[in-house]
């Protein structure tokens, strides 16, 4: 069975170059070069791998100002089938609620076109685990909810897509470990940097991408209610922006003036004080 995927791509300011305005606490974005959200490229690679083994199509989808077509043009170079940019003044200022509303309308339209072309609609939606400028991690789950997809977030290893049973199995990263999940298609997955990094694009794909169009859809191209778009459709208000306090450094027990066994004993005591030792006792 062929798997049709949509990969969500966000163009973000290169946060390694962003500075924070000390007075307002907000990001100084002016003059900062734009890059593709790095986690989205892990998501794209995961989608490419699924297509490698199952066939099907990949559509890259982005929402942003007209210049975000640069990100999609780059993504086209990896040999995907189609790139769609949602760009309209009405989309501007969207929080994750309005963003998922708009993206889900576009994914429905993409699915409709795939079905009209004799396909099975969209089977998988791939997102990066979060964007490096917003850091919310809400868009993937939001899309799953709005499109009624099953979801696996924070995927650190996408094991397999079983076409016959229409399921996927994936390892999911948790704070305290990993869990193996099985989910039914259609599914939304969000991908972490523990997955494979993006491949080195082949020259024929780059040549094709140099001439491939980026399709631009406005609000009028989607079945949407204007009040639910952009700033108007965004209830989130930023009450305060602040730089997080620097994390305290951990305590270091080190030599060379102390012999290793003494250091080990001191470490044991500290762990015991916190009740972190299991059985046994010192000495």
């Amino acid at each position, binding site marked *: 069975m062929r798997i049709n995927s949509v990969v969500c791509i966000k163009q973000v300011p290169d946060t390694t170059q962003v500075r924070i305005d000390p007075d307002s606490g907000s990001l100084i974005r002016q003059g900062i070069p734009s890059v593709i959200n790095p986690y989205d490229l892990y998501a794209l690679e995961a989608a490419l791998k699924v297509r490698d083994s199952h066939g099907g199509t990949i559509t890259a989808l982005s929402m942003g100002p007209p210049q975000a077509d640069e990100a999609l043009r780059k993504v086209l170079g990896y040999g995907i089938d189609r790139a769609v940019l949602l760009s309209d003044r009405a989309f501007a200022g969207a929080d994750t609620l309005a963003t998922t509303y708009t993206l889900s309308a576009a994914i429905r339209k993409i699915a409709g076109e795939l079905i009209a072309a004799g396909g099975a609609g969209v089977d998988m939606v791939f997102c990066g685990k979060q964007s490096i400028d917003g850091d919310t991690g809400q868009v993937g789950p939001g899309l799953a909810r709005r499109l009624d997809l099953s979801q696996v977030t924070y995927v650190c290893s996408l094991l397999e897509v079983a076409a016959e049973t229409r399921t996927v199995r994936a390892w999911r990263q948790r704070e305290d470990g990993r869990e193996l999940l099985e989910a039914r298609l259609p599914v939304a997955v969000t991908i972490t940097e523990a997955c494979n990094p993006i491949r*080195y694009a*082949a*020259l024929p794909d*780059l040549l094709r991408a*140099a*001439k491939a169009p980026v*399709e*631009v859809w406005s609000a009028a191209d989607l079945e949407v209610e204007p009040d639910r778009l952009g700033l108007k459709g965004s209830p989130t208000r930023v009450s305060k922006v602040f730089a997080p306090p620097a994390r305290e450094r951990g305590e270091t027990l080190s030599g060379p003036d102390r012999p290793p066994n003494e250091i080990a004993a001191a470490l044991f005591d500290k762990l015991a004080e916190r009740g972190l030792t299991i059985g046994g006792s010192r000495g």
Partner: protein
Amino acid sequence: MNGSQVHPAGGDGKRRPAPSRFGAIVVGGGPAGLAATYTLAGAGVDVACLERGDWCGSKNMMGGLIFSQPTAKVFPNFWHEAPLERHVTRRDMWLATGDSAMKVSFESTDFGAEPYNSFTVYRSRFDKWLSRRAAEAGAWMIPETLVESLLWEDGRVVGVRTGRPGGDLEADVVIIAEGVNHFLAEAAGLAAGPPKAETMALAVKEVLALPRDRIEDRFDLDRGAGAAIEIIGETTGGLPGTGFIYTNRDTISVGVGVLLDSLVGSTREAYSLLDNFKQQPQVRRLIQGAGLREYSAHLIPEGGYRYMPRLFGDGVLVAGDAAGMVNAINSEGANLALLSGQMAAQTVLSCREEGRFDAAALGRYRTMLENSLVLKDLRKYSSATNFLSSHQHLFGLYPELLASLAREFLTVDNMSKADKERLLARLFRSQVPVRSLIKDFYQAWRDLK
């Protein structure tokens, strides 16, 4: 649902499969390569331009001027659309010592109106714009792709090999516009070896941020206008070279360029020359309070006419810095690159009519260049770099001497004017024996005329 639009930016919007064999492949998306690509694409040739940087311009650190008229020959009226910093209305030349400077300044309102004379630009933005024009004209623009070697067939170049999967491309002709380190020109057997230190200058540059209106106040400029200052003398620690200051929109480019082998032969480090230059009092005043934005360094092939590689072979042409096309005396490189790239493209177009791309057919490129200002200018100054490196004392001695004469002349003290003139003459002769003065001037006239 109404019809959705398709973004043409970055392509001509026509979905066309890549040909199995291109009409031409251009290696390098700098001014030479982009002029060649744009010209060929505009004439309907299937052309691919391969650039190793993230985008065209991303590897370019040129801190100088682009000259309006040569650029307009390739991209007419570019000043209406291209991202430019300031149009330059004033060119200054300073002879500087450690604490003083003699300044010659030329300013013209002509330079402030179309077609202008020159502009300061950020090449990273300007070249990106040029590459968009080439893409709109129909070229296949392929960034982030390094050409590793040439493809050969029966002793002639028939394409390039990149490091990418499926990375071979075939073409009737390959235009090498790879920049100063001309690996491919060497591989094509056109350059004898890697560039030699005695033919190279090293430029070190900083970009310093200053608000727009403060630049205009400080440099005494009309709104939007710019200044270009070249400085000879103590700025380069007595080494053959010059310092430069260019005003951008809200930054200033400050740098020094020195001949590489004199730098290697000295105990100086390139960055320390720049630090020194910035401490020169007249320079320091102009850049005071401006924060560091960028630091970069690049080689410039200043060997000139005598050190140029062969410019053509079977299935291959060389243009721009890769061909050593830099006029060090007038600080011109980008416009020679643009013109040579355009002529390489015109050569390919005329060879296409005959369907021949061997060296004999492509040789008309050389003739075209000889008849243009590109090789006329380079030939005129063919001894310039030799003269500069064999007359290193000029960069320290004469500015120092002129400054001390000026200082004596302008200092009003208790000496009579007649005594002062005698003192000046004595001072002059003590610094420069008349015979060596005549020799220097004769050689300068011979080599730079």
